[in-house]
C-alpha cells in the first residue's frame, strides 16, 4: 500500500503496522527496521513517510478527565476533534490548536504545533503536562517539562520514540462562539500595523492575497478574536462536505486562484467589521471541506512555511512576496501570522516574528522557485517548518535551527538514529 501525507507527495510503497497494544509494539520495536510513527496524515510532506510506518491512529482511548483542573489524559492516536466533541460541552477548550482539528495528540506533540494564539500561549508543548513514550529499547519513559527527552520530543518529528499517552491541560471557555473582528488592509505596511494594533487579542491570523502586485502587495484580511461569554456551550461539530476525487491538475491555475482570492477578499467590508462565529468556522475553516487537498490534483502539493525574525520580517516578506507574485505560481492559501517568543525545545518552529505559509501544487519549476525563496529566508536568519516541508536541503534547514546539533547528539547517544527515521529526517540528516 502507499500511505501519503496531506500533500499526497511523495507517494512511495510502504508497509503499515497498526499500534494496538504495548506488548505488540515492544515486539515490533525489537524486530522492525527503521520506521516512523504516523498519526492522521495531516503533516504535509515526508515527515511521517518511510518504507515502514507505524500507524498510531487506532491507539485512541481517553483515559482520564479531571474536570476540576481541566486535565485530560489520553492515548496518542486521539484526534483533537474527539477532544472537542467531548470537552467543549463541559466548558473546556484546547489551549493551543492548529488550523485543523483532524490531527492526533501524538502528532501535535511531535510537531509542537501552534495556532492563532501563539503570541499569547505559545506552542502545544506549553499545555503538555507530561507524556509517555516508548524508546528504542522497548522501555517506556514518562517525561515532564524540563526533561531533555521532553525538549527533544516536542517538535522532534517522532524521531525520539513512539509517543503513547499524554496529559494535556485545557482552558476554560464560557461559549462556543468567538467574537471576531475582520480588518481589511490594502498593503503590507497596513497589514503589519494591524497585527501590532491588535496584538492584545488572543487569536489572530491573516489571509494574504499572494498575487497582488506593486502598491497592493501584502494586502490581507486580518481576523482577530476571542471567545464570547454567553454561556452557550451546546457545541456540535459541523457536518462536512467532501471533495470526492482529485481535480484535474489544470483546475488550479492562476486565474482560478485570482478568482478565489478576489471572492474571499471582496466579500469582506472595507476597514473593520465584526462577526460572531462558531469554533469550527473560526479555528478550522478548511476542515469543513473533507479532502480539500484533492483540489490540487493527483500530483499533490506542498506547503511552504517559513518564519523571519520580527525586525527583518517586513523587508524579507516584501522580497519573498514580490518573488512569488512575479513567478505567477498560484497559492490558494497564504496565511500570515505574528508569533511570540520561542521556546526551548530543540526543533520547535516558532520564533518571535512573522510567518507566512503558502500552498503550491507540485509542478515543474516549483522546487527551483522554493530554493530561491530559501535563499531569502536564510539571508534574513529565518527558518522552515518541518511539518509542512517535503524538499528543504540539509544546509538551509540547519542554518535556521541553532540547536540542531544538540538534537543530533541526543539521537545518536540514545541509539535513536537507527530506529526512528522518516524520508525527511534522512534528507536533512537529523
Amino acid at each position: 500500500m502507499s500511505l501519503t501525507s496531506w500533500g499526497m507527495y511523495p507517494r512511495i510503497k510502504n508497509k503499515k503496522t497498526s499500534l494496538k497494544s504495548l506488548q505488540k509494539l515492544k515486539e515490533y520495536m525489537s524486530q522492525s527496521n527503521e520506521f516512523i510513527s504516523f498519526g492522521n496524515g495531516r503533516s504535509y510532506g515526508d515527515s511521517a513517510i518511510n518504507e515502514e510506518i507505524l500507524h498510531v491512529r487506532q491507539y485512541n482511548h481517553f483515559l482520564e478527565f479531571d474536570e476540576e483542573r481541566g486535565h485530560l489524559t489520553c492515548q496518542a492516536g486521539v484526534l483533537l476533534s474527539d477532544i472537542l466533541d467531548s470537552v467543549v460541552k463541559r466548558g473546556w477548550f484546547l489551549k493551543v490548536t492548529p488550523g485543523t482539528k483532524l490531527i492526533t495528540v501524538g502528532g501535535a506533540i511531535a510537531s509542537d504545533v501552534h495556532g492563532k494564539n501563539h503570541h499569547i500561549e505559545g506552542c502545544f508543548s506549553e499545555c503538555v503536562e507530561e507524556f509517555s513514550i516508548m524508546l528504542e529499547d522497548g522501555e517506556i519513559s514518562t517525561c515532564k517539562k524540563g526533561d531533555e527527552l521532553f525538549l527533544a520530543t516536542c517538535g522532534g518529528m517522532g524521531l525520539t520514540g513512539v509517543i503513547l499517552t499524554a496529559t494535556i491541560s485545557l482552558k476554560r471557555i464560557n461559549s462556543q462562539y468567538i467574537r471576531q473582528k475582520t480588518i481589511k488592509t490594502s498593503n503590507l505596511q497596513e497589514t503589519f500595523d494591524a497585527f501590532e494594533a491588535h496584538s492584545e487579542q488572543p487569536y489572530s491570523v491573516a489571509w494574504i492575497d499572494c498575487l497582488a502586485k506593486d502598491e497592493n502587495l501584502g494586502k490581507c484580511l486580518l481576523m482577530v478574536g476571542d471567545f464570547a461569554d454567553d454561556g452557550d456551550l451546546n457545541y456540535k461539530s459541523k457536518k462536512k462536505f467532501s471533495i470526492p476525487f482529485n481535480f484535474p491538475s489544470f483546475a488550479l491555475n492562476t486565474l482560478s486562484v485570482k478568482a478565489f482570492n478576489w471572492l474571499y477578499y471582496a466579500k469582506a467590508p472595507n476597514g473593520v467589521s465584526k462577526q460572531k462565529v462558531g469554533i469550527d468556522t473560526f479555528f478550522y475553516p478548511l476542515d469543513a471541506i473533507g479532502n480539500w487537498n484533492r483540489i490540487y490534483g493527483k500530483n499533490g502539493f506542498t506547503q511552504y512555511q517559513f518564519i523571519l525574525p520580527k525586525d527583518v520580517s517586513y523587508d524579507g516578506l516584501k522580497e519573498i512576496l514580490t518573488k512569488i507574485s512575479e513567478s505567477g505560481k498560484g497559492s490558494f492559501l497564504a496565511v500570515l501570522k505574528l508569533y511570540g517568543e520561542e521556546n526551548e525545545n530543540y526543533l520547535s518552529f516558532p520564533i518571535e516574528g512573522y510567518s507566512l505559509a503558502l500552498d503550491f501544487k507540485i509542478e515543474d519549476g516549483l522546487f527551483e522557485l522554493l530554493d530561491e525563496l530559501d535563499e531569502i529566508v536564510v539571508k534574513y536568519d529565518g527558518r522552515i517548518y518541518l511539518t509542512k516541508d517535503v524538499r528543504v536541503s540539509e544546509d538551509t534547514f540547519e542554518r535556521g535551527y541553532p540547536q540542531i546539533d544538540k538534537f543530533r547528539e541526543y539521537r545518536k547517544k540514545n541509539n535513536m538514529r537507527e530506529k526512528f527515521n522518516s524520508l525527511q529526517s534522512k534528507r536533512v540528516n537529523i
Partner: protein
Amino acid sequence: MSYVLIIGAKSDIAKEVARTYAKNGYNLYLAARKCEELEDLKQDIEVRSSVSVELKEFDITAYDTHKDFYDNLSEKPLGVIVVSGYMVDQRIAQNNWNESLQTINVNYTGAVSILNIVANDFENERRGFIVGVSSVAGDRGRKANYIYGSAKAAFSSYLSGLRNRLFESGVHVLTVKPGFVDTKMTENLDLPEKLTAQPTDVANDIYNAQQSGRNILYTKSIWMLVMLIIKNIPEFIFKKMSI
C-alpha cells in the same frame, strides 16, 4: 437518557458506533463474548461522554440464553444494533463444515434469534429502532465469498421483512450494507483506497441514517452504484467472471 444495546461490541465498527451514540447522549449496553475485555473501551467512552456503559456477557450462537439475556436488562433499550459478524477465507469455509456453520450462525441464525425477542418487545411497546449490519456481500453471491455472502443475504432479507412487519407499530428497522471497511476483519486484504471506509465514517453514517429513518444504507455510498451494476450483470456472463 435511553439505552442502546450493541450486539457484537468487540468489532472495530461496533467500537466507533458505541462512541458515536455515546457522544449523542445515549447510555450503552455493550454485549459480547468475554465482555471483560471491553473494560478499556467502557472507560474510554465514560471519560469522553459522561454516559453510563454496562458490559454484558453475550454469545450470539448460544441461542437458548438470548431470552434470559434480554429479560435481565434492567432497563429495556430504545434501540438495538447488531454488528456481529464472522468471516473466514472462502476456501477455508467451503472445505470445513464447522467454519461454514459458524459463518451462517454468527451472521444469520444468531441475529435472528436475538432480534425475534427484541422485535416482539418493541412491537408491544410500539417504540424503538433496530439496526442490522449486513454487507454488500449479501447482494449477490460471488465465488470469492459466497458462504459469508449468503448468510448476509439471508440477514438482509430478514431485516427487510422485519421492517415491513414493524412499520405499523412505529418501530424502525435500518439495514446497513458496508462495503470494504478498514478493520481487523480485513487487515490482511489489500483494499482499494477509494472504496474503503474508515470505521468512524461507517459509524457516523449509521447514526445519521438511523436518526433520519432511512431504510437501507450503503457505506460508502458509492457501493450502492457498484452493487447496482454487479446485481444487474446477466447470470450467463456473471458465472464466467472473477470479481
